[in-house]
């Protein structure tokens, strides 16, 4: 698949949150206001692209040569967790403003299944290194987009009279559901027609 195809796929068609259920926790948890949503979105995008690239290397330079693909899960998550922690430390040390903006979301990314998800998906689809990187980047962008949309809606809902039991996460989920409904406009056929195969 071309790079553009990959981008469209992970931003719209197979949007991590809205059609793959990946990254739901931060999608619900960090979408209360737009500023933090954008911060989280960029942090995730950054980690996802990096993680996709590194796990590709891990897969092709260690797991496959040594024939220990069954250790995929363990090693991938180990890399991601370490990566997140290193990035957090580095950002905090070298760029306090950036840490102010993104830092508090970084620890949350370890358990963002989207990162692990896109790493596994990239490996399953036998992407090359560049494709993996682009997949990670666009999955992150798709996540950012969904988060941004969601935060806009939730900011609006903050000042509406949502029935008591639906306030907070329930209405966020319902909103997410309706968003997913609209995202059904984007299907694989659309991609095929758009970029010709």
């Amino acid at each position, binding site marked *: 698949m071309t790079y553009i195809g990959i981008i469209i796929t992970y931003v719209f068609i197979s949007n991590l949150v809205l059609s793959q259920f990946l990254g739901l926790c931060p999608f619900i948890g960090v979408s209360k206001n737009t500023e933090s949503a954008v911060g989280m979105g960029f942090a995730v995008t950054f980690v996802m692209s990096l993680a996709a690239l590194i796990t590709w290397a891990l897969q092709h330079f*260690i797991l496959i040569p040594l024939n220990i693909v069954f250790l995929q899960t363990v*090693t991938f998550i*180990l890399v991601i967790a*370490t990566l997140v922690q290193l990035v957090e430390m580095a950002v905090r*040390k070298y760029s306090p403003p950036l840490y102010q903006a993104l830092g508090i979301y970084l620890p949350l990314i370890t358990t963002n299944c989207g990162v692990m998800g896109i790493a596994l998906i990239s490996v399953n689809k036998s992407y090359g290194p560049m494709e993996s990187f682009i997949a990670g980047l666009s999955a992150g962008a798709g996540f950012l987009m969904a988060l941004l949309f969601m935060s806009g809606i939730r900011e609006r809902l903050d000042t509406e009279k949502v029935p008591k039991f639906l306030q907070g996460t329930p209405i966020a989920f319902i909103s997410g559901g309706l968003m997913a409904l609209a995202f059904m406009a984007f299907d694989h056929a659309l991609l095929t027609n758009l970029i010709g195969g």
Partner: protein
Amino acid sequence: MEGIVRIIAAFLSTTVFAALLGLGLAIASRKLKVEKDEKVESLNNLLPGLNCGACGYAGCEGYAEALASEEDSDISRCGPGGAETRSNLSALLGLEADESAVRMVARLACLGTDEAAVKEFQYVGYADCESAHMQFDGDKGCKYGCLGLGSCVKSCPVNAIDYTGDGLVVVDPDKCIGCEICVAVCPTGVMKMIPADADWFVSCNSNDKAKITKSLCTAGCIGCRICERKFPDAGYVVTDNLSVLGYTGVRGEGRAAAAAACPPKCIIQIDKVKED
């Protein structure tokens, strides 16, 4: 044989890999160490996070900062947190709490329901006491009473106040944290802070003369002084046409009898707050 080779390969590579990552993290954590003020954070965690301002600081974090910097050593400022917060703060800071503070709760000093009180005009506008009060001090004849439009209901941080449905509001004293926001926002000043263990209460706020009060509300205190004169130990003091029950420094006898003797029946028995 092949299996064993694989096991060894897996074993060795993972060990090395994990050890390397661990080493990397350990080095990074040493090199990239950033000091952060954990004291404020942990103090802030102990506070209830309501940001009600009852402590006199701008929100819980302000109080936490003041405590952390030892600017302030009074750990009993947080009314909402109650004894639990006090003891937590005490444990963390090693400071003694001033346990003498009496828990205060808000009560509505008005019995002027739609039925009891005379309306002067029909107010049309935003349903909020503040706006209603801007028009001739509210739609009730009595300008001291509860307007019933719920400025207090809306601004109560713990939703302890609710509408009664007949033109007044009511405080749930169990939920009340004593932050006094309702007292501040009420334009007629009809919310009063009284001790949580109070038993009787003069539920009126009118300083009008008896004749006027009588013409405006069937349940208004007319300042007749029966409670004050006949039951001197109860603690009733009438000033400016209004009886107020004092709770400290008096024996408190005869409160019930005074209530029975009160002509407009504006002295009411109140439930004591459940101590949890």
